[in-house]
């Protein structure tokens, strides 16, 4: 989705803008991490990693150590990410073939993977590849590999669908991408961990109450003792 779409949509939503969600997720990425960012809002995370932290980005199609899109006109057709968009290279980059690239994923070498979601369940189940609708042509890409292989799988998603339906459930109704794989969810309204006993509310967006979150979440919400308000810059 383009940035234009993002900001337009953001004005219609309560809580954090999409850029603020990405910013919040970026704060949890540690110095030296190997990170794979999914298409869409997750891609925006890279722009908000705090100064002083050096992060190495992996893309499934076989590049490690890539940077932001090059300036217009400097794009190279052979230098793209898994979303098929142009990227640049940072110092320490490398190229490798597809089997080696997924060996990095499946072998547990990627520290953090951040993806979008259609549904997340309180046990960490993730559905983000198919609604399972009759007649839909299924397409999965690397999502199942990423959630099965990355050391930490985190999700960025709006708390509700565009129709106002919940996306956080006791159980996913859509076909799963992986079982028990998600460790943390960043929404426009909250930061929620998957704990032993289900969703644990860690942070609320400014102005959002626990009661509102309970109403908008289709599963029990355990409020962490140290639950705080998300502090985000204007973005």
């Amino acid at each position: 989705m383009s940035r234009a779409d993002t900001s337009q949509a953001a004005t219609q939503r309560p809580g954090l803008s999409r850029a603020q969600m990405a910013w919040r997720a970026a704060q949890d990425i540690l110095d030296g991490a190997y990170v794979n960012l999914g298409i869409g809002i997750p891609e925006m995370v890279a722009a908000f990693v705090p100064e002083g932290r050096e992060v190495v980005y992996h893309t499934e199609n076989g590049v490690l150590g890539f940077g932001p899109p090059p300036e217009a006109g400097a794009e190279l057709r052979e230098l793209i990410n898994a979303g098929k968009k142009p990227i640049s290279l940072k110092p320490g980059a490398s190229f490798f073939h597809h089997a080696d690239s997924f060996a990095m994923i499946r072998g547990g070498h990627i520290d953090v993977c951040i993806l979008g979601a259609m549904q997340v369940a309180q046990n960490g189940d993730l559905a983000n590849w198919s609604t399972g609708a009759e007649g839909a042509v299924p397409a999965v890409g690397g999502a199942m590999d990423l959630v099965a292989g990355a050391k930490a799988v985190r999700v960025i998603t709006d708390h509700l669908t565009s129709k106002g339906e919940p996306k956080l459930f006791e159980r996913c109704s859509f076909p799963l991408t992986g079982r028990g794989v998600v460790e943390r969810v960043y929404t426009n309204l909250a930061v929620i961990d998957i704990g032993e006993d289900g969703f644990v509310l860690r942070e609320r967006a400014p102005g959002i109450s626990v009661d509102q979150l309970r109403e908008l979440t289709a599963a029990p919400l355990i409020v962490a003792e140290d639950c705080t308000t998300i502090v985000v810059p204007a973005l």
Partner: protein
Amino acid sequence: MIDKSCASVEEAVAAISDGDTVMIGGFGEAGSPIELIHALIDQGARDLVVINNNTGNGRVGLAALIAAGRVRRMICSFPRGTTDTLFPELYRAGKIELELVPQGTLAERIRAGGAGIPAFYTATAAGTTLAEGKETRDFDGRCYVMERGLTADYALVKAEKADRFGNAVYNKAARNFGPIMCMAARTAIIQVGEIVADGAIDPEHVITPGIFVQHVVAVDEPALESELIAQGASYP
């Protein structure tokens, strides 16, 4: 003397037969062997099983091969282009079969086929609908799916340069599926920008050793998928 070079893409693909399994390299337009695919369209083989990560874009390259009705079955991870409705329409109409494979499992199955591994286990897709009908097994308390190695009659791959032995190097992310498809196909055909002299590729830098390559063909100025699509091109 070993010389795997072919005079033309036509010559390179001449022996591909109806019903063959053909691996086609490329991820997006990076590494897509358009000239080889177009030669395959001209050549006429049909009823093909094609292995590629996607199903092409526009009406050139792989999408054109599919549009020409030559592909009986696609094995891929993501059978959709950004705007493309070709594959979905054919699929819904029952005119093409689809084996959907997670991308990393697809890559590993190809690598396994090339390495003589008939089957392996992966946690990818365990507990999902894509594991339905597949054997699963626990190792050390985790559930894994058994996946089979994939081999092919042919691989069509685009590389940057090769020598007469078939030793090849790639260009950036255009490497993608090329090296493993060359391993997994009985006959790997690579189109390269340039066939270079003996010794021009440092043995340390070879990505695909020539043992995995059967034919090399020079395509000096390969077409770019995105440019063809921007021009509204349609093949043939």
